């Protein structure tokens, strides 16, 4: 009856939403790695690197319109490499999903529900998200689009009011730049642009693929703007020294929101309520794409059963892992590996695609 795909802007909102969730996750790492308030340089460099790869990858996706990256790699690369690429994406999504839930559940427990067991919070989010993930890509993209409208935009609008207590000169000193720190933190910022891994799968679902390249670039620019904005908000509020000390900088910034005339006192709870809706959408999106990745790797036709398999895996990983602060030294290594592979796999496919194109001509 009507189109069976998602609209291009719904695709963009999926990507922005997921990237936002991971940016808030990776923020403490970027703050601590760079010496001085110049982390935004590594964000800009990361965004430029990603934009450069958007055009070639979209060209290859145009040749294989209905396939996600796993499908494309099975056409271009030998069978086992394609399977391992699919396996890599499955592991990436599951690990990222459990990290996100773990981080988020801890924040909820600390701020809102002090005595409630953390497993209960994780199970509630998991069950709600799996209920949504079963409904298919159209519903999920509508949820993401509406979440951007009613949760993300108000969240950012409220956070901006924390600038009341800020000291804008905290952005200095810019020169001299700690180049080594900036370069070292680029993999972390690349992990923050998580939508880049998602767009490999979601681009094929868009009903009008002509606009894909332009909109993917738009996504990276918007995401970069939000990333830099959040980074600078944290820096100007706390200054470099204290910002490095915080476990959840974004949350601590929320405590300082001062909207003139607003009657709620502790505004971090208002912010957390918005963040619950944002995180729920991200978990739901990631569950769906894990399901899609498993489906494509194992080449099954059945839709949606793999979501039920994910629930216990995610629950165990999220509930059994130790606290976020303990995890940060260990998160660095996967972040390097994941962001590296996230970039290498599309580049590999681009080269293979170009080779095949030349061979054809």
């Amino acid at each position, binding site marked *: 009856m009507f189109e069976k795909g998602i*609209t291009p*802007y719904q695709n963009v909102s999926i990507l922005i939403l997921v990237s936002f969730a991971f940016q808030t996750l990776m923020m403490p790492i970027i703050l601590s790695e760079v010496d001085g308030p110049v982390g935004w340089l590594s964000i800009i460099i990361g965004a430029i690197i990603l934009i450069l790869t958007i055009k070639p990858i979209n060209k290859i996706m145009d040749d294989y319109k209905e396939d996600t990256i796993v499908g494309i790699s099975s056409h271009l690369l030998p069978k086992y490499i394609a399977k391992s690429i699919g396996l890599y994406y499955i592991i990436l999504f599951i690990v990222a999903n459990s990290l996100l839930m773990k981080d988020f559940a801890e924040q*909820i427990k600390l701020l809102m*529900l002090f005595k409630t067991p953390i497993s209960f919070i994780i199970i509630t989010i998991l069950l709600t998200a799996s209920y949504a993930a079963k*409904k298919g890509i159209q*519903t999920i993209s509508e949820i993401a689009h*509406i979440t951007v409208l009613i949760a993300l935009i108000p969240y950012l609008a409220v956070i901006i009011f924390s600038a009341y207590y800020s000291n804008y000169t905290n952005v200095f000193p810019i020169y001299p730049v700690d180049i080594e720190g900036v370069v070292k933190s680029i993999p972390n910022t690349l992990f923050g642009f998580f939508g880049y891994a998602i767009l490999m799968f979601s681009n094929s679902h868009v009903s009008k693929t002509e606009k894909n390249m332009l909109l993917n670039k738009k996504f990276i620019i918007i995401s970069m703007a939000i990333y830099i904005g959040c980074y600078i908000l944290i820096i100007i509020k706390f200054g470099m020294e204290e910002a490095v000390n915080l476990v959840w900088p974004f949350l601590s910034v929320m405590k300082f929101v001062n909207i003139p005339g607003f009657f709620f006192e*502790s505004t971090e709870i208002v912010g957390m309520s918005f963040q*619950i809706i944002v995180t729920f959408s991200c978990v739901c999106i990631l569950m769906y794409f894990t399901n899609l990745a498993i489906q494509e790797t194992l080449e099954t036709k059945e839709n949606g059963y793999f979501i039920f398999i994910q629930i216990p895996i995610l629950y165990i990983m999220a509930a059994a892992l130790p606290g976020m602060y303990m995890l940060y030294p260990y998160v660095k290594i996967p972040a390097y590996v994941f962001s590296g592979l996230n970039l290498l796999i599309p580049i590999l496919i681009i080269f293979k695609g170009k080779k095949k194109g030349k061979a054809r001509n």
Partner: protein
Amino acid sequence: MKENKVERKIETDLNKNIAILKEILKDADDIIYRRLECGKNQKIKMGVVYIDGMTDKDSVSEYAIDNLIENLDLEELEKNAEKELQGAIAKTSISVLEVKPILTIEDSVLKILSGETVLFIDTCSKAIMLSSRGWPMRGVSEPSTETVLRGARDGFNETMKVNLTLIRRRIRDPKLKVKYMQIGSVSKTDIAIMYIEDKVNEDVLKAVQKRLNNINIEAVLESSYIEELIEDDNYSPFPQIENTERPDAAASALLEGRVVIAVDNTPTVLMAPAIFTAFMQSSEDYYERWLSSCMIRIIRYIALPITILLPAMYVAITSFHPNMLPTELALYVAASRANVPFPAYFEAFLMELVIELIREAAIRIIGPVGSTIGLVGGLVIGQSSVEAGLITPLAVIVVALTAIASFTIPSYNFSTSLRMIRFAFIFLAATMGLFGISIGLCILIIHLCTLKSFGIPYLSPFSSFVENKKDLKDTVIRHKIHNLVHRPQYLRSKKEKGL
């Protein structure tokens, strides 16, 4: 669904026909069988069968029938009934609106039961139906549930033909199409599907017709039966088909490209497809100035979260997150709750239940006593409970505000569904505080995004607000009439432009 009945042809012998009819319609004492002899030289014998009370007396007067039969050639009637009847009508001066031949006994029974008069002629195997419906009906009056300050005050009534007329008066376009159907194996209720040919979405129209054809029910007593039988998701608390008693609303729906279903014996017509924004609109928005309409619509959209969430927020904030309140308010609330025996969620739940009871009671009680009960109930119960120390004054304010906010929603069945959701949110807030409310909101969003009304996503145009940004001019705000030129994009109807 038509049953495979054996259709008996009409006999040439008048007495036999009358006997068969009396057999089928026995013990129905309001059916009148009259024998007449008219025509040239009083030679033609006829039987007139009709139901007393359902027919207009003038149409079945002897004079009218005599006039008709004089100009009728019986042999021609046997061969080519339609043509002969038309010719006869053209020569007469009676005011019968419709004359048709009838071939089977079953058909004649149906027509008699619908209020027409059937004329059986001796030696003729065809009967004649004279359209003579004329039962007592309620006049065209203002609909009680949808009042406006400015705008037409006529409303539909129980006769389908009157309803169709009211709509036709507003759309005098040859492209306005009306299709009749009959639904209900016992009630055989007449249904009319209306649409404008070059504006409607073909897929929606086909879906509507298909679903109506698939209905298998004995009787259709109200349009809500049809609504339940053809809607997409019966388990959802939200309505997916809009209903109205106002002809201008129905005409506006037709102009948008929607399908209107009128049902006989009910003043409510259905409009499909209907989405979320349709339930938040009222006809009055288009009759007032656009700036004031903007403000009123924004107030409605603010009232929407208030009516769903306010009691739940009260429970969550006082029980789980008291640090959200300003210090003085927190102390005041704590002081006012000091002697109250019930916890906050029980207070909220109890007061909501009382409001629902008052609302239901006020509907049942008629006359001036009804409005008094509402006032008395609200004031006395609220005030007395506070003085007795059963609930806090803040709870009364919260519940009263919620009730007032729910009355700003123009559509009654939509606000009823919101009432149900409110209870669910109170429960979630009592168990998990603001986290529970957020999870409830997530579940609500999932449900609304899954819901479709005849293929159109329920949350259009919000669910694709960048692509359909032209539609946003008529949702939370109402832009000037000049700018509302484009047909709603979400309907994907044929003609894009046109007011």
